[in-house]
């Protein structure tokens, strides 16, 4: 009996780029698998190797060593089979200025040998809120619209494995929500989704498993839930007129204007509140939450730096 292959496999993948200052190791012995039907996040700071790893998967970069497979097909040896099962939304905002939105999607469908793509393209245009721009030249679109066309191009052949490299950069909140709703639907229909994003809350709410890369190495691979549990801790936001001097080192200023604290447990909250009381600053609002992926991410990458 043969079991179905993983959606994606990386087996000891390394990638070195030549550079004037010597070779740069963008990926260092990366191995992990993504099972079929997963909604998977690939996280890491800038330069961690996320895009290089996706490039290896998509055949845009050749691994220096190791192999990558899509649904069991080697991306180098069986590249036609692998690529026909993969849809990639590249990170960089790119388009062909010669064509309209509809022509762009039709052309991309034909590259993959999709016949009679019309109804699916109509649905993509609707889902991506581009129907009214179907006849517009790509040059005439805003950045967010171009990004949505790129999403459409990646989905036009209905690939079983979809990779989105920072797909929501420059896309407004409402459309971002629509896009994620659409991705959830595709995931529900059996598509495997791999996502890289800087918006960690997106990964946290959507993805069941997470891989974290740093400096080309895999530093964490676990379910989102276990990663968060492993980090532990309490996240606290306090709104107040000013920050007591005693807490200057431990607080971060949030976008909301509140002061954020990451505490080891709930008991530690008393120390923070005591500092506010002794400084004569009254607390206007207090919010307490569990650990988030950002904390996990920061802690894991910091730990890795410490042991390097």
């Amino acid at each position: 009996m043969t079991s179905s292959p993983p959606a994606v496999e990386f087996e000891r993948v390394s990638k070195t780029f030549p550079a004037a200052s010597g070779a740069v190791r963008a990926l260092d012995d990366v191995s992990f698998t993504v099972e079929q039907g997963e909604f998977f996040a690939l996280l890491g700071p800038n330069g961690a190797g996320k895009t290089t790893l996706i490039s290896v998967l998509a055949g845009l970069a050749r691994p220096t060593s190791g192999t990558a497979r899509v649904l069991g097909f080697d991306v180098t040896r069986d590249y036609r089979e692998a690529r026909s099962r993969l849809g990639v939304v590249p990170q960089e905002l790119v388009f062909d200025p010669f064509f309209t939105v509809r022509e762009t999607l039709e052309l991309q469908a034909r590259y993959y040998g999709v016949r009679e793509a019309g109804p699916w393209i109509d649905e993509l245009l609707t889902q991506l809120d581009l129907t009214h721009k179907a006849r517009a030249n790509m040059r005439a679109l805003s950045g967010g619209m171009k990004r949505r066309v790129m999403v459409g191009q990646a989905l036009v052949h209905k690939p079983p494995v979809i990779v989105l490299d920072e797909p929501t950069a420059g896309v407004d909140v409402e459309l971002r929500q629509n896009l994620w709703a659409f991705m959830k639907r595709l995931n529900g229909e059996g598509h495997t989704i791999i996502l890289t994003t800087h918006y960690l809350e997106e990964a946290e709410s959507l993805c069941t498993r997470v891989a974290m890369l740093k400096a080309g190495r895999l530093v964490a691979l676990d379910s989102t839930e276990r990663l968060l549990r492993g980090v532990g801790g309490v996240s606290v936001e306090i709104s107040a007129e000013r920050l007591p001097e005693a807490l200057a080192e431990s607080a971060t200023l949030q976008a909301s204007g509140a002061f954020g604290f990451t505490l080891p447990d709930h008991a530690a909250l008393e120390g923070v509140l005591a500092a506010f009381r002794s400084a004569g600053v009254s607390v206007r609002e207090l919010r307490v939450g569990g650990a988030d992926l950002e904390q996990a991410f920061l802690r894991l990458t910091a730990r890795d730096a410490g042991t390097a």
Partner: protein
Amino acid sequence: MDMTRKPAIARGTILGPGFRALLGKEVLRFWKVALQTIVAPVVTTLLYLLIFSHVLDEHVRVYDGRVAYTAFLVPGLIMMSMLQNAFANSSSSLIQSKMMRNLIFILLPPITSLEIYLAYVLGAVLRGLAVGFGVWLVTLPFVPWHALVPDHPLWNVAFAVFGSSAMGTLGLIAGIWSEKFDHLAVFQNFFIMPLTFLSGVFYSIHSLPVFWQTVSHLNPFFYMIDGFRYGFFGAADVSPWLSLAILLLFNLVLSAVALRLLATGYKLRS
């Protein structure tokens, strides 16, 4: 959505749907801006004809006076415009895709190196033929009708197709090699333009001193022009068979280089 469906490309397919799609895109690309890619070169070539024929028609004898200079000039101009536009088509398409970074939409799908090569080169051939046909049409009023009806049309077709394919392939190589428009301009201005102008478009090489005749024989473009001209008049500076053999060899070498560059992903995949 059916997740178990087989991909649209059967294993072992030599020319898959990606080839047809890419060829269609290449043709659509130049057709959408036909004023710039077809009409403009036709007009420019017509200006060459008007100026050169006006100045030189009474002064230059070719093929021992059997062919009027203007009639001699037209096939050379047709071929020159075909060669230059075939080169321009593949090279500009590729460099634009590289500079705009949208080449990724061709690199991501399951399209083989052979399919990419053939699509770009055939696109270039079709543009070359469209421009060549346009030049032939607009020059008809300036030359006696019988002079522009080919004596041996199969030779014309062979040299037009293989000449354009050689230049389309050279354009593909130049587009792959170039990292910016400047690089391509170097290729175009210091290689393509001098070699086409010095290939006997405007004169028979028998009118040159012996040294320059020898130099002309080293120029592959000379054989393309000379062979194409043979199709019109049944007369040429060298045997059309020799010209065809050299042109095919030129095609073979260039296509081997282009296919190798595509297969290794040189400057396309990291």
